[in-house]
């Protein structure tokens, strides 16, 4: 432990925590105004429900040595998680850093089911998913589980985070089904600047995500950091080119999407590939996600904000390209296909497939389970009014027009003078 490493990991943890609200804005901008708060809250809620679950149980399941498939309970309720060193930093900080990953991963899924899912059911799904899907998968790759043994390379979570969330999103879109208006009406983003704001803050946070995954402030962190800067730049340019070729125009939503796709793709590779490879990887990764997104919009699959196309497909591209571009001279760990080790690509594919299978099936089952106990969807009427008013009793952008203050019945003496007499425009039967 040294103060330099601690300083960097403190910063990284803060930055990754910021990614979840940032995701809320990225997603929130893409939905209709009547669902803006609900969408934002889907992300913010993960901070509480997944974060607490992680501290109390998830961390133990992921990071204690149990079986190759899952850890044990020895660190449950934060027992034995103290200020002693875990690598270069206090274990408690390591726990927190890893917790921010669990939170953002679960929140990512919400993009597939916006504008229609009951909030209570969503919260139940969120909490369960963090424990039943995320924690085991994290264990496989980073907690000494079977994919670690196999030699799968995943620097900062291409598989654990993005493939995992992307496939879960697919399952969720199938389980929750499409929005009533989907494919029948034009559904426009209500606030694209928020989506760009989200993309910018996600990028900022991702420097902590990838750079912090070195778990120290060293050359590896620097490499991961710089690659996290270069790859999305290339994706951005490639995406704009694809947009212009197809429609003659580049788009703002496209730019925001490209940044995220580039960040997703470089995540597994960040500390393993040369900077120039990161540029190429970023450019290449634009293509599959771009076309996945076009294809998805033509289907009945209402993965509303294209979590699978961005995170699933982007994560797969990244995981596989890590097996192509990895370079031992930069990472000290392993080479990829291009540097004489085709075997790595196979291992990467196995990791991707394993996570896809587990997360896809598991997520679907959790939702079915929640659906047995509660209703997954709001009513059609609620869907058309919007979830902000119906699920939360709030409007994102209130004007106060026609809003009548309801005095509390048990008004304090001091307050009674200021409250208007109860009344309602329609209490009486008169009409014009």
């Amino acid at each position: 432990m040294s103060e330099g490493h601690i300083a960097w990991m403190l910063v990284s943890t803060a930055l990754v925590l910021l990614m979840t609200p940032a995701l809320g804005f990225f997603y929130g901008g893409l939905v209709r105004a009547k669902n803006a708060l609900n969408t934002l809250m889907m992300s913010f809620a993960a901070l509480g429900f997944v974060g607490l679950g992680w501290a109390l149980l998830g961390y133990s399941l992921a990071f204690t040595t149990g079986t190759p498939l899952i850890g044990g309970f020895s660190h449950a309720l934060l027992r034995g998680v103290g200020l002693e060193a875990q690598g270069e930093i206090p274990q408690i900080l390591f726990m927190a850093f890893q917790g921010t990953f669990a939170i953002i991963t679960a929140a990512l899924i919400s993009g597939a089911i916006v504008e229609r899912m009951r909030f209570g059911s969503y919260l139940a799904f969120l909490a369960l998913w963090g424990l039943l899907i995320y924690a085991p998968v994290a264990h496989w790759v980073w907690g000494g589980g079977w994919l670690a043994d196999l030699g799968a390379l995943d620097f900062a979570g291409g598989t654990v985070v993005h493939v995992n969330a992307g496939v879960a999103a697919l399952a969720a879109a199938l389980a929750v089904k499409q929005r009533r208006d989907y494919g029948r009406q034009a559904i426009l983003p209500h606030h694209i600047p928020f989506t760009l704001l989200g993309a910018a803050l996600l990028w900022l946070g991702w420097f902590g995500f990838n750079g912090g995954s070195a778990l120290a402030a060293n050359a590896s962190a620097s490499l991961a950091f710089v690659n996290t800067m270069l790859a999305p730049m290339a994706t951005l340019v490639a995406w704009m080119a694809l947009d212009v070729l197809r429609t003659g125009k580049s788009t703002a939503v496209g730019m925001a999407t490209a940044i995220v796709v580039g960040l997703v793709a470089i995540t597994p590779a960040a500390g393993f590939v040369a900077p120039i490879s990161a540029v190429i990887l970023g450019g290449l990764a634009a293509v599959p996600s771009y076309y996945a997104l076009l294809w998805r919009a033509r289907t009945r699959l209402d993965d509303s904000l294209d979590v699978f196309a961005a995170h699933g497909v982007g994560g797969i591209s990244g995981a596989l390209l890590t097996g192509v571009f990895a370079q031992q001279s930069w990472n000290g760990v392993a080479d990829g296909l291009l540097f004489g080790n085709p075997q790595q690509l196979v291992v990467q594919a196995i990791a991707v497939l394993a996570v896809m299978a587990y997360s896809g099936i598991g997520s679907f089952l959790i939702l079915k389970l929640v659906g047995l106990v509660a209703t997954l969807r709001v009513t059609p009427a609620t869907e058309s009014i919007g979830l902000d008013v119906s699920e939360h009793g709030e409007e994102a952008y209130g004007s106060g027009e026609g809003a009548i203050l309801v005095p509390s019945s048990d008004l304090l003496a001091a307050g009674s003078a200021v409250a208007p007499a109860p009344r309602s425009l329609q209490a009486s039967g008169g009409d014009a």
Partner: protein
Amino acid sequence: MKLVVAIVRTEKLNDVLEALFRAEVRGLTITPARGHGGETEQVETYRGTTIKMELSQKVRLEIGVSDHFVEPTVEAIMSAARTGEVGDGKIFVLPVERVYRIRTGERDEAAVTPVA
């Protein structure tokens, strides 16, 4: 039947709604609007540029009523919306040839009478 169109101050809207309720007027539609009349203009400054705002925020109400309800409706608006300062707004009473209630297809008088 008539259509009463009233332009009032935004901050008076809730008072007007309450007065209309007291007058037993029920259905109405409002739209935000900006108006120009005798009000003092606001001056705004953005960096080096000075701007005169000739329009001030108002609310426009539109109320379909049967003939004998015109008077009480107008009076309710007049008393609730008045401050006595320039900018209180105007009321226009327009003739209406037909009214339909979309839900039931009812016409005219029936369409502006509340269903029990």
